[in-house]
């Protein structure tokens, strides 16, 4: 297990390197630059700015310097936020994004697994159809459509919850963005759980359990849930990625000060360092999370052994 973990960690290095290189050179290849303004800057001022951000060095040297910075945990100065460094921005934005994303994943797991299991138990009955139709709707409505609908209903008409803002992560501010972000995932997870649960419920060991006279609840919780969760666990990797990309839109709509917004604004403003910072940071996060998912898989499925 330890050797496997080490090997996985080492193999993450080239992946990250490729990610950083591609992002770095693609960002620089984009036409226009951070100092392109409607009123072009006087040449002396542009020269000063370029020198201050060391944009005049050859590209490979800038790349090498950037890599060196990352190793020291320094993502460089932001072009757009002139009073902050990228490391500071990520440090303030990430706790917010983490809270939003983790809550969404947790909510999606709890509701998705519950709804999926119920649907599996009531296969082809009304409850099943309702769960499946609602989840199909959840999957097909993109979150940039769902979010404004939620705001319209719960913030403007019912006036139960705020329409935007973060309020330092107060529960009432979190409800709508978390739901909007979790909805498509709830739907996916419910469908996955239902499918695998139906399969598990038909297997021999469950039939044996039934024959022993165990209650449905006991069978479900003690025997069926663990194997039925395998596909859900392996979906958690992609789900994290989806929640991260989804948060870019959700943070914008709800005015949540997370790092997803930095990515959009950074790309539009050609804030090279800010975009790179978010890409590298999220890249590391997704790699780490996929690794954790694989470990969890080994724990859930005795057939999986890593060596």
């Amino acid at each position, binding site marked *: 297990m330890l050797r496997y973990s080490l090997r996985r960690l080492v193999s993450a290095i080239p992946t990250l390197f490729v990610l950083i290189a591609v992002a770095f050179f693609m960002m620089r290849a984009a036409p*226009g*630059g951070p100092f392109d303004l*409607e009123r072009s800057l*006087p040449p002396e001022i542009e020269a000063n700015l370029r020198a201050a951000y060391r944009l005049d060095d050859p590209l490979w040297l800038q790349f090498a310097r950037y890599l060196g910075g990352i190793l020291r945990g320094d993502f460089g100065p932001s072009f757009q*936020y002139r009073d902050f460094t990228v490391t500071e921005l990520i440090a303030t934005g990430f706790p917010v994004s983490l809270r939003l994303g983790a809550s969404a994943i947790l909510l999606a797991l709890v509701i998705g697994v519950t709804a999926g299991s119920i649907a599996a138990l009531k296969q082809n009955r009304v409850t099943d159809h309702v769960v499946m139709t609602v989840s199909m709707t959840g999957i097909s409505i993109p979150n940039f459509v769902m979010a404004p609908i939620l705001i319209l209903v719960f913030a403007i008409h019912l*006036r139960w919850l705020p329409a*935007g803002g973060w309020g330092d992560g107060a529960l009432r501010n979190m409800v709508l963005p978390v739901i909007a972000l979790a909805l498509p995932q709830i739907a996916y997870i419910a469908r996955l759980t239902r499918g695998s649960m139906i399969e598990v419920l038909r297997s021999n060991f469950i039939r044996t359990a039934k024959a022993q006279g165990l209650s449905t609840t006991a069978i479900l919780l003690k025997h069926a849930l663990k194997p039925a969760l395998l596909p859900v666990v392996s979906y958690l990797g992609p789900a994290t990625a989806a929640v991260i990309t989804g948060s870019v839109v959700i943070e914008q709509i709800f005015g949540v000060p997370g790092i997803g917004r930095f990515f959009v*604004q950074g790309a539009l403003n050609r804030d090279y360092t800010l975009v790179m910072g978010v890409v590298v940071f999220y890249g590391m996060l997704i790699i780490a999370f996929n690794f954790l998912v694989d470990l969890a898989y080994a724990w859930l499925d005795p057939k999986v052994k890593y060596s």
Partner: protein
Amino acid sequence: MKKLAFLTCSLLAMLAACSSDYAPSGPIGGESGTELAERQVIHIGNGTDPQTLDPHRAQGVPESNIGRSLFEGLVAEAPNGDLIPGVAESWEISEDGKTYTFHLRANARWSNGDPVTAGDFVYGMRRSVDPKTLSVYSFILAPIENANAIIAGDLPPEELGVAAIDDRTLEIRLENPTPYFLGLLTHSASYAVHPPSVEAHGDAFTRPGNLVSNGAYQLAEWVVQSHVKLVKNPYYWDADSVTIEEAYFHATEDVAAELKRFRAGELDMTNTIPKSQLGWIRENMPDRLVIAPYLGSYYYGLNTTKPPLDSPALRRALSLAIDRDIITKQITASGELSAYSWIPPTIANYGGGVEMPEASWTQAEREAEARRLYAQAGYSAENPLRLEILYNTHDDHRRIAVAIASMWRNVLGVEATLVNQEWKVYLDTRNQKKTQVFRAGWIGDYNDPYTFAEIAHSKSELNDFGYDNPEYDRLLALAAAETDLEKRAEILKQAERRLLDDMPLIPLYFYVTAKMVQPWVQGYEANIMDHFRVQDLKILKH
């Protein structure tokens, strides 16, 4: 399935009930109509996130909005936009218009209690033009003696023509008489900063806890991508007449979300409105919509540096073939004025401005003239002009480009293709003059015709249409040296007539600003610069 149908129906019913927007519980302002709310807190939608709170590095509107409440310049602006004394309580201008002497208030204080001195302004302005500050708006101070040479790095900042005669007397010497100079002193590039805190904290002097400001408010919180919170500065010289205690400037780059937060009662003022919702707003909350003329021109630049648009006759034909009223009445439709001149007629120091001679014609007459000029330039149905219109990706710009392309086709037979590019790509294409026709807009930096006139100068950084007319440049230089305001206006009008004859840019309309303001916000007045200060506002009981 019935349950599902029920759920869907009730959801739709809730959506249809469009009458439950936030509404005050009692009459606004209580019985008297002027009663103030107990909590004087204002929430303002401020557009995109401010990039910096350093007044000398600020470049965008969101930063300036906050800056006006955080800092106070020598001169300030009243709610209607008129210039009023700021830190300077009075001033004198020398005969030749080149030396300004400001007398600072004895009771002007920084937010830590230190007095605001003339030396602080000297320090601030030197810092602003110092190339090391990396300011992109230092050109605002260009009229001051030696400023251009300092910005270019040829002279040290100490050579700037600004001197503290004593703690309360500041002298500024200009290169040329500049009648709009007082207006420039409301711009953040001219603000003082608190020297000890800048020296102590360096680039981090703008952080909450570090920032010392001299305006009606001081910085309490700055959560990037969320809000900037200001609280009243107890040391402000006019603190007694400041009513609002706390002001939140929220980052609201998503305009649709901003309107929703306004409708939910979370915002007292918005930065703008989503244009697509204008009809709905007019129908449902017309009393909260504030539309006002704005000091800006929307135009099409024509690349005069290469054929076919190097021909003035052809450029005039293209201009005359456009029915501007269709654009302002049916496409933008927010009260914009059709433009028959480059400089907005409402601008100060310009006596009403000029118009192109065809302004008084009917559109049919203009089109007849357009066809004549088009034929004169050598084009016909068999040999049509082919053009490319470049615009930055945005629905409003696309709709205008489609309309103009079809007007050109119907009136002249021009075959125009549309190209859209993302903002930074578009700027790059434009700056490199790889264009034929490009959409653009210009918002004046100060309330004087020169901020528009200078754009067409052959050396201007905004002259992406490549206009190069020595006579025009000469007239601008003449205007810069003229001390008599009326004579100066005449010279600038002569220059603008020249520009309209040559038509390197086609003015289309003059901008308006549109925002939502709750009825309990008192003291807000729309003005042509779209400037406001929180200290002039009050929250009525609601």
